[in-house]
């Protein structure tokens, strides 16, 4: 499915997302069941279960060290849990490598910007399409005929993403020279270049000022609505979480302590004690 065309079928999904009952009734895209992950004696995640419905924005919150990033790493196959089941699109998943997860349609951004700093915005996003390139090493080196045609097609997709995220002006700028807020946007662009079904965002707004946060929120909503991409995000800014997400799961010390609508979670006593109460 192409990036832009994907918008059409997605419209209905978002339109139906209005009420909680409908959200719950929707098709599950990914579910994690009784996941336990430990490094030696340290339990990063203990017996956590939740599911992500197709087309929703799912926030994962919790105090520092709650196991949020570990959870993302489990989902995209970087860590392998000792116990528990992960199923993606209804299929139970075996132990797999991150690139296999990526091939299945799971893309992510990182807490600390992880771009190729010396490369331009365009090249960084093109790198996001590596898994979609089918011509082999020889053809790529030759850069002629079918390989060139393939690159042109990929470039077209990339240009659509550049247009979507409004980063035309920095197309040819080396990423290292960009301000932080824009680097984050380039990282999102690279993740989108994979045309994922599930997008994992690890603190997309960390270190941003108010205006950058507003922009990024707008783009996350646009990605969700226009492209129909399901999003799981980790975020510390509670205001952003409450505004953006359809449902919130709260982790504390590796355990799930709440799961539900933003407003319910905000009112949940355990959450206030564990997280909001301590922080504020």
């Amino acid at each position, binding site marked *: 499915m192409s990036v832009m065309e994907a918008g059409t079928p997605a419209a209905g999904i978002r339109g139906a997302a209005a009420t909680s009952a409908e959200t719950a009734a929707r098709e599950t895209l990914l579910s994690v069941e009784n996941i336990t992950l430990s490094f030696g004696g340290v339990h990063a995640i203990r017996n956590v279960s939740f599911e992500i419905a197709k087309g929703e924005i799912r926030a994962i919150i919790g105090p520092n060290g709650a196991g949020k990033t570990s959870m993302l790493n489990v989902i995209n196959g970087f860590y392998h849990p000792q116990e528990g089941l992960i199923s993606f699109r209804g299929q139970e998943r075996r132990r797999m490598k991150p690139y296999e997860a990526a091939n299945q349609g799971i893309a992510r951004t990182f807490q600390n910007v992880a771009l190729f700093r010396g490369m331009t915005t365009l090249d960084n996003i093109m790198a996001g399409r590596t898994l979609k390139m089918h011509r082999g090493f020889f053809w790529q080196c030759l850069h002629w005929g079918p390989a060139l045609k393939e690159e042109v097609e990929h470039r077209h997709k990339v240009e659509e993403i550049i247009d*979507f995220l409004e980063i*035309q002006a920095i*197309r*040819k700028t080396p990423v290292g020279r960009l301000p932080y807020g824009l680097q984050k946007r380039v990282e999102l662009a690279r993740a989108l270049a994979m045309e994922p079904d599930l997008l994992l965002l690890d603190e997309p707004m960390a270190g941003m000022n108010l205006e950058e946060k507003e922009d990024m929120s707008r783009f996350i909503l646009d990605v969700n609505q*226009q492209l129909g991409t399901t999003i799981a995000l980790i975020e510390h800014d509670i205001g952003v979480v409450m505004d953006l997400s359809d449902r919130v799961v709260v982790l504390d010390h590796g355990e799930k302590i709440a799961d539900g609508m933003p407003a319910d979670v905000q009112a949940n006593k355990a959450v206030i004690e564990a997280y909001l109460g301590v922080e504020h």
Partner: protein
Amino acid sequence: MTQTVAPAGGEDTFPKLLIRNAGIWADRPAIREKDLGIWQTWTWAEVLDEVRAFAAGLAELGLKRGDKVAIVGSNRPRLYWTMCAAQSLGAVPVPVYQDAVAAEMTFVLQHAGARFAVVQDQEQVDKLLSISDDLTDLERIVYDEERGLKDYDHSRLHPFAAVQETGRKTLASNPQAAADLDASIAAGKGSDIAVILYTSGTTGQPKGVMLSFDNTVISAKLACEFDNLTQTDEVLAYLPMAWVGDHIFSYAESYWSGFCVACPESPETMLQDLREIGPTYFFSPPRIFENLLTTVMIRMEDAGPLKKKMFHYFLGVARRAGEKILNGEPVAFSDRVLYAIGGFLVYGPLKNVLGMSRMRVGYTAGEAIGPEIFRFYRSLGLNLKQLYGQTEASVFVTVQPDGEIRADTVGKPAPEVEIKIDDSGEVLYRSPGVFVGYYKNEEATRATKTAEGWVHTGDAGFFDNEGHLRIIDRAKDVGHLTDNTLFAPKYIENKLKFFPNIKEAVAFGHERAFVAVMLNIDLTAVGSWAERNNISYASYQELAGLPKVYEMLEEHVVEVNRDLSTEPRVAGSQIHRFLVLHKELDADDGELTRTQKVRRSYIAEKYEPLITALYDGSKEQDIATEVTFEDGRKGEIKACVKIVDVQTFGIETQQEAAE
């Protein structure tokens, strides 16, 4: 003076000109837009097809002769087509500044009574919907970019493509619709209102300037003849569509002479797009030329020593000989050779970087341009000229003819323009481009335009010995100090603003004992200076208040005083005290107009405590100012602003000062 009569029947409106162009230049490019990183081009024949389809679609939606169509958005082919489509149906396009906040738009759309609005994207749709309760006339909104608008209530909203599609189908299936459209185009005549352009309103509410087809078509024709513009030229359309300059240069002149108009990919990519297109005909307010020069100079600071040396050496050669060569004056042979080498090593690449390699004619207007900046571009061999114009004149009042270019005049009367200066020093003109009147504002029309067709410019000026017009200030802004010395604020402000470190200046002095100014630093220039000198700062406010910045600006002010002291007419209006403002003057806060001109009276009111402090001798003053953020919310910033006394020069100390 002979007056041009309206062109013959087939060429007196833009829809008719479009049909002519599609006939004689069917395969020549008419308009381009960069989309998904690639320049897309439409030929004149294709433009005709697009415009007709859209016009038919609008007719289906119920657009009628005499209706007003608001156009809101940045320069896009589809929005330019909208103008011609509306005109084809006898409706009047009303372009609106796209960065105006919703409240500002309310007035214009209400006043114009727009029934239709054609807008660029979700942002503009949201703006219009937020004020839709006040816009009782507005029935339909057509939008270009569909992104984000899918889930909106579409009872009044229409995607541009869908309207065009309906139009195409109607034209194909219903011969009567096609005939109606042809008849409607044929019914248009030169005296019809072609467009209503709202002036940015330096004072009070904006006024809707009605220009007829005769006004705009004849102005375009004369200008094209004056600068020999043909279908082979190319321009970049990047200035607001609501501004008369863009309307004449990117729309009227293009339809008249057939040249191609390129629309940038986004406002931020304008400089890159400029470089890719390499326009042959370029129009810009001075600030763009200033920004370009500042960017180049800052980049050169980072170049290697050899390159830097070469750059500055050849710029010296250009300063010495470049302008003379351009004007066709005699130049030493050695300088000619050096200039040719410089062209190869420096000027050529530099012009390429600036996107001016192919530039044949360039205009700057709207504000006075710094003589240094003006000379810099001319010395590179770029034919940059100044013009003086107004919305009410369909732009042209005076222009500088080739070979008679000077930084301090605005040139001679444009073709078929008569100019006179009245007793108070105000400039009046009469021309074929003179507007029909202000929309729904008889009183203002009478105050501006006399029964004989003379228009008051509101500017004070005089003709110099060579017949060139010099503008000194707004006629009503020219005032007097308490000792009756002439005080022309803009004259002083412009001198200050020619320093790259000073972005904006506001001078006070009318009915005061002496002249005092408020300055705005230029964040790019001063920021870069601070970086080079290892001066750290956390905010605009902090940078503006640094003692070292004050010292630097004081030197500039002293320089201006020295300069003023050499001119007897203005020597008395030297600057005695100044301060540096803690915030940037901004159109969102109402301090500047949308075309970035200072709104003096508003500033005087808003910063009243600072002005009092300028005149009561205090060394500093606390001030709290309201600011509007880009999303429309308001906040407050507080600051303690220092005030500095400056050295002034008497006429007798001039000798001393000149050393």
